[in-house]
């Protein structure tokens, strides 16, 4: 009897062992968990794009469709001569720039489906936090285009999450993104006139949006000596070059948008 029992045991063990072996021989893939992002205001585009790449090829699950086979447009390779996604995103939908197109694609995928594909993509807001979505957009833009995602986009999370150290090694910053308060606090109005009042050391803030587009305003704040406005040559070099360190990205964007809006 014991001989039979042992034989039965041996058969069971061999069968179980065989199945276990088969499962070990095939490629071992572990499904990753998306890392919890907590983007503070002063993240660099590179860091944002790098975080986005991890989401894209990892836990976001994007490559399951985008990148293999024909379920969805391949984003990292050239498609039909239009270039990679960063190069083609701006011209996909008329009247929509790259950033808003990508945001719409991720949050309301059914709004525009690339011809030849089916409407199968889920709303990514159910899977990813807002800052993760923006990081992914930054990554996609970095594929052949320029990263224009900034802290103002994921405005809700500009403040460091409770429990995490605020902006690790950054300089002490006030959190306000209220532009007028910032212009006063950072001493801008000491040289630039606003609402028709103020000293004429730098160009007036009034109508600045008419003279300069937003990116040039941003450049002028970060690199004040790169260009000098006509008529202010004598004051060239007066403006401090430290605003890049003094402002968080959210604050910088707040100022830039505010100034660009002054027409």
């Amino acid at each position: 009897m014991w001989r039979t029992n042992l034989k039965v045991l041996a058969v069971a063990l061999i069968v179980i062992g065989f199945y276990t072996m088969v499962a070990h021989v095939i490629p071992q893939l572990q499904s990753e968990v998306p890392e919890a992002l907590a983007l503070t205001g002063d993240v660099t585009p590179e860091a944002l794009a790098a975080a986005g790449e991890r989401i894209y090829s990892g836990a976001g699950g994007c490559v399951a469709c985008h990148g293999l086979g024909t379920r969805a447009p391949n984003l990292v390779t050239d498609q039909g001569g239009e270039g990679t996604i960063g190069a083609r995103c701006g011209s996909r939908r008329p009247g929509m720039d790259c950033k808003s197109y990508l945001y719409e694609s991720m949050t309301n995928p059914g709004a525009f489906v690339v011809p030849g594909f089916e409407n199968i993509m889920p709303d990514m807001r159910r899977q990813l936090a807002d800052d993760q979505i923006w990081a992914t957009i930054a990554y996609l833009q970095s594929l052949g285009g320029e990263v224009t995602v900034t802290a103002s986009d994921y405005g809700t999370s500009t403040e460091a999450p409770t429990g995490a150290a605020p902006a690790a090694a950054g300089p002490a910053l006030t959190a306000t993104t209220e532009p007028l308060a910032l212009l006063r606090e950072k001493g801008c109005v000491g040289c630039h006139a606003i609402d028709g009042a103020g000293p004429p050391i730098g160009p007036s803030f009034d109508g600045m949006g008419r003279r300069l587009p937003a990116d040039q305003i941003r450049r002028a704040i970060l690199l004040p000596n790169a260009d000098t406005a006509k008529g202010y040559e004598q004051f060239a070099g007066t403006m401090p070059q430290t605003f890049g360190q003094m402002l968080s990205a959210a604050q910088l964007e707040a100022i830039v948008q505010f100034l660009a809006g002054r027409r």
Partner: protein
Amino acid sequence: MTDVVGLLQAAAQAAADTAGGYGHFPGIGARGAVWIAAEVHLMFAAFVLGVPMFAVICELIGIVGKDEKYDKLSKEFTRLLVFAYSATALWGGLLLFFLTTLYPRFWTHMATIFSRSMWVYAGLFFIESFTLYLYYYGWDRWKVGRAKWGHWGLGLLLNVWGTIVMFIANSWLTYMMSPPSGVTAETLPAEVGLWNAIANATWMPINIHRLIGNAVFGGAICGAYAAFRFLAAKTPEERAHYDWMGYVGNFIAISTFIVLPFAGYWLGREIYEYNQQMGITMMGGFMSWLWIVQAVLIGVLFLAANYYLWTGMGRIPGAERFAPYTKWMLLVLVICWIVWATPHTIIATREELAAMGGSHHPFLNVLGVMSAKNTAVNLMILTTFLSFLIYRRANRRPTVAWARTATIIQTAMFAIAAGVVLFYGVYGYFVEAIVRIGFSVYQVLAVLACIIGVSIIDVFLVRGAESRGEIRWGMMPARSQYALFILAVTFTWLMGLMGFARSGIRQHWHVYEVMRDTSADAATPALGEAANMISLCVLIFLGLVAFIFWLGGLAERAGHKAPVALAVPPQPAAGD
């Protein structure tokens, strides 16, 4: 702007979540503990839900056909149930404790939504237990006349309770897989609504899939029990009885198993409908290799089942005339298995990759796609059905006048079904994917139509057939019994694997897209690690089942003093 990389892992946040949300279990970790408790509980549950189904059917055959043999068989099945029932409850309790202590946050979420159904569940469990005790211990008391029918009603009731209990439990886990679309991470659990949560997208498909799966599983385990007792049998009568019981178990397991893929197909479609990404993760993404392992297991199942039938033909007079065909059926099965187990993306060394110019082989590529696999599976099902048919027909000589015509029609049905399956299999390569998916439905319908049509003809054909000699029950080589063990082990392992697939496609979510798993074990393990866990669960389950089998023998000996000498009455027909 600033060179401070403001990218922080919200480690503190996650740690805060984890601290309140998860417990710690030594050694195998919290996930391991819950995994084992849940899987072993599920295996026992499948057993105690599957066995009553055919215990009741066997009893009915016994009553209607006035055949003592079936009644004995039914009672023997039920005896296994009594022990297995407490094991199910024990493991269920263990699972409950593990969930409340190791996953308190998640448990609170589930309990808030499902509290009322949980109470009903516990109540039904009580009622079910008492029904079972009445059913088993009342067997000899209510043995004749109207009382027997009342007793049979108890068995039916047992099934009803069991099915409701399973449906309730299924609603919890299908809610985890496919919460209703209105539920998001922000929804308060109290606002979800009980019925809304229960009637989610995958609830019914899982219910049906499990109902069938349980019958398959119960049959396989009973087959293994019979094999165990057959090998231990001391008298020819005992051997004859358990040989017959093993045959019935195998018959139930395989005949219900043939329907299982269709239920699985429905479940898969519902998953795709619910969320494309989930479906793709399951079939083409992270889980795609799992289906190769599944193909290996199912290949083993088909071959073992057919092998059992073929060796069994040695005890049927008249079966010799079919012997030459078995090797061709075997060839078909082996070729189909090879096709089915061919991977699409092939593991190869650098030199081989260079020679192939990628990881797809120019020819094997053709076999690796769904078209080929569907064709292979359908042909395997047809072949297995043919084995059954031959087995059934082996010792009979039809006496009806139209026997010859009927056989020709049956042959034609097989040929047509195989032709349809092959045609759509090959034609699938020449059409778009979207059209091809529809073809699998035609293939399945052809096979089902063939099975139903041929069976109906056969029932009338063998009515009043002459016998070529009695089946010599018990004259079975010992090695055939090992095929039954392999079947049972494989079914158990397959259940563990499919459980991993079902649970794993949620990935890092407790409740898909509603409640995130923030524990240290959130990542879904690779197949190798999962296989270790599955094997461990299977070993625990089979170890306990072996103990129960042994108890079954013990109780019997104590009850009867002498070994049961079950008289096997002359049996003109193979048990069906």
